[in-house]
């Protein structure tokens, strides 16, 4: 009998082979599945960060301290352009995932690059807007409204910036190693991250910009 626990003494009952099944491979069952669920839970915790920032903006968003308000500062055309950039980047990332599912490395890289360019376009819009606001004297320390605004929109833009960095890193990985399972898993995580940021942006442009413009 070669199957016996190493510590079994002479008093151990003889066991049949059916009882002894060692699930040594348990750790490798469903590779990536736990990663995606864990990443989703991370995104939900990120969602709570944004909820706190939204609640702050909701509470102090009308406290202008005799300074400029949303209607004086925001440009709806620029916001529409930012929204279009992010929406286009969402569908191009979707196309990248479809190319990945078909195993087309070149097409995946191309769509990822297009996604990255749209992401940079969005960041450019945000940078232009922030620069414009600061030159007008609407700095974060001007009023509670501006503090909350810069924190909320800045946090979102920071997320997009890190998403863009992550995108470039993954493109390098795909170029070097191809669409191996590890890279597919990473691309799926970034897909969740990227679409999640678009969902946050829906709340931002609706609540901060559009509703801020209302008299």
């Amino acid at each position, binding site marked *: 009998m*070669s199957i016996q626990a190493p510590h079994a003494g002479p008093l151990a009952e003889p066991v049949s082979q059916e009882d002894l099944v060692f699930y040594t*491979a348990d750790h490798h069952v469903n590779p990536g599945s736990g990663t995606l669920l864990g990443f989703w839970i991370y995104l939900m915790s990120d969602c709570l960060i944004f909820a706190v920032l939204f609640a702050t903006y909701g509470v102090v968003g009308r406290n202008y301290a005799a300074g400029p308000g949303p209607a004086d500062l925001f440009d*709806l055309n620029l916001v529409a352009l930012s929204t279009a950039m992010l929406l286009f980047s969402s*569908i191009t990332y979707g196309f990248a995932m479809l190319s990945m599912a078909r195993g087309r490395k070149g097409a995946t890289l191309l769509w990822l690059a297009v996604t990255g360019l749209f992401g940079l376009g969005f960041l450019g819009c945000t940078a232009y807007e922030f620069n414009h606001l600061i030159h007008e004297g609407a700095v974060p320390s001007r009023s509670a409204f501006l503090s909350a605004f810069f924190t909320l929109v800045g946090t979102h833009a920071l997320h997009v910036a890190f998403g863009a960095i992550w995108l470039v890193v993954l493109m390098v990985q795909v170029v070097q190693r191809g669409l191996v399972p590890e890279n597919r898993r990473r691309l799926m995580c970034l897909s969740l991250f990227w679409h999640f940021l678009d*969902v946050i942006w829906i709340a931002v442009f609706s609540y901060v910009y559009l509703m801020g413009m209302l008299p």
Partner: protein
Amino acid sequence: MSAQPHAAAAHHDHGHAHDDVEDGAHGSLKGYVAGFLLSVVLTAIPFWLVGGDVLGSSRLTAFAVMGFAVVQIVVHMIFFLHMNTHSEAGWNMLALVFTAVLVVIMLAGSLWVMYHLNTNMMPGMHDMRQMP
């Protein structure tokens, strides 16, 4: 040694079942295009409502904008994030619902408490907001 085939077979079964799930997680071209077109419409209407001052009433426009935002978030969740009740055996959805409950409590609670803060101030201090 003889235990290996069992474990290997179990491993293979799990792996195969997982592949089937993953294939559905990528979505389809039709799904992405449908989600994109819906998003464009659901974005354009609130911008038009606010930019053109179509409804006349601020309160009505605000409710409409919030309504379109909620619908668009649901559209993104379904078509882009591929949320459904059977991915990851429902744990994704459970985490989402739990987070949504927390977010609603946090937002509604904060706004409610802070909105009524002035009511509980000393008499004669109701106009705190207008103070410099």
